[in-house]
């Protein structure tokens, strides 16, 4: 993700990894139950494939720098920057 470090309030629309995985598991369970009619099974397969892709995208996310927080006067937190590269720590 390439969001600015000063706006941490992002990612609300996308499902979390946990949600995506839970949905995927639900789909696999339903499909394996054999109760699903063919047409629905194929629809679910398409949805499952999308979920697999979402999971993989999250899993393959690039390594992130640690973001440094600082406390504001009102007690809230702001991202003040990134922690220096670990070799320099």
């Amino acid at each position, binding site marked *: 993700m390439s969001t600015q470090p000063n706006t*941490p*309030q992002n*990612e609300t629309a996308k499902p*979390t*990894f*946990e949600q995506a*995985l839970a949905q*995927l*598991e639900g*789909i*696999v369970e339903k*499909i*394996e139950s*054999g109760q*699903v009619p*063919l047409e629905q*099974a*194929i629809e*679910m*397969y398409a949805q*499952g*494939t999308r979920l*697999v892709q979402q*999971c*993989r995208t*999250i*899993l393959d*996310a*690039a*390594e*992130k720098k*640690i*973001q*440094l*927080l600082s*406390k504001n006067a009102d*007690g*809230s*937190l702001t*991202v003040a920057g990134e*922690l220096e590269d*670990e070799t320099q*720590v």
Partner: protein
Amino acid sequence: MADRKSTQPGFDFSKAKGPRATPVVGGDEAAAQAPPPWPVSLLVRHIKESLSECFPAAISVVGEISNFKRHSSGHLYFRLKDANAAIDAVMFRTAAARLKFEPADGLEVVAQGRIDVYDQRGQLQICIDRLSPKGAGELELAFQQLRAKLQAEGLFDAAAKKPLPMYPRAIGLITSPTGAAVRDIARTLARRWPAADVYLLPVMVQGAEAAGQVAAAVALLDAGAGRLNIDTLIVARGGGSLEDLWAFNEEIVARAIFAARTPIVCGVGHEVDVTIADLVADVRAATPTAAAELAVPDADAVRRGVATLAGRMTRRVGETVRSARAELTGLLRSSVFRDPGAAVRTHTRRVDELSHCLASGLAAQVAQARRAMEAPAAALAGLHPVRLVDRARAAVDALQASLRWNLGARAKRGGESLLRLEGRLTAALPRHRLALARQRVEAAARQLEAMSYRSVLARGFSVTRDSRGQIVRSAAAVAAGEILSTQVSDGAIASRVMGGGEGGPPPPAAAPARRSKKHSPDSGPGLFDDKPSQPRQDEP
């Protein structure tokens, strides 16, 4: 004070003995020589000053605490005792605040302080500056005490521990921004679960301020976790001495960790180190690295799990599709598709059967209804007017027949009697009388015939009819050119009118027409045709 001290220097036991000797010695003389009595405050002060000279500024005393009381002012009051003696002790607020452990009755302690006298009561006491447990270290004791206390309160209960999220979205890190701990954690998180964002709230992890900072940071990150999607907190510090790690044994940190709603992993020190923070945390890790490992899953393992799920899904859907295809093939081979009309025929047949049943059912019903109707219909028919008429007519016929029979029989009888009368008459009358009678009968017959219009015709009269068959009675009734038919005795003569007749204007066409119907040839002269002639022809 100074001058006082100069006039009455120090606590002098020889002088002190003086007043005590007085009652023993007695006598007016001695009393007169004795110094004036000591005011109490002077005496107490004298004692106080003598004691401070006697004891150095700070002494160290070992004993057991009893009668321990913590005053609301923050001062501690208790008594130090051993088997044979006891002394009151006081520890003022500023000194008490530095205590790591909690003094309690029965605790063997080493107290450092100075001997003092409490003026108001003249009580001997020791004012303690520093207090430490005897034997064990102060920190060890403090740790044990806090652990026991928090354990009793349930802060370590397994039931109170919150589960960590399986796949954290963002992690809040509370540690020093410098040092091995933050580096180890960063590396571990990046290796195992790069999907998570990591936020560091830097704190001091050592020193007097450390506990307060760590506690505040826990509360702060917990409160702001939602906005940053933080679902896991890590509290960490690298290894060190007990004193170094002490901040994580402070009650304020323990309470902050316990109060947090976000699950917390705590990794402080090395494997052997256990801190109160470790015990309170939802998950206790031996080291900072272990804390990071416990906080996040291994992406590789998760990736394999996702692949397994995807494989299971693909396999099962593939099976479903294959079996559906096989089913379809089977269906296509089935009779329905080889002979698509069969089903239709079957249904047609069924419809036919049903409609037949319906028809025959209807017919049966109609027949039944008809049968049911027959008797009443017959009864009704008997009452039909035609039948009644028929019956009446039959009755009339029967009556007529019997009447005729009766009449016939009577006529026969009458005829027979007539013949007999005729015979008698013939026998009685002469012939000429019979011939005379016959002439009279013939004359009557001729006369009768003359009345017929045929005999009129025979006498030379004729009957003339117009083209419409109407008898011409007036000259005005014919028009010139009209064809007339004139009947004479032996036939009819057709003639054309040559000239118009005299007289009035011809009557309206309707009047003769109306009249013509009443006097049609059949009803008019026809009546004369037969009747007058026939008796004449039949009679001879």
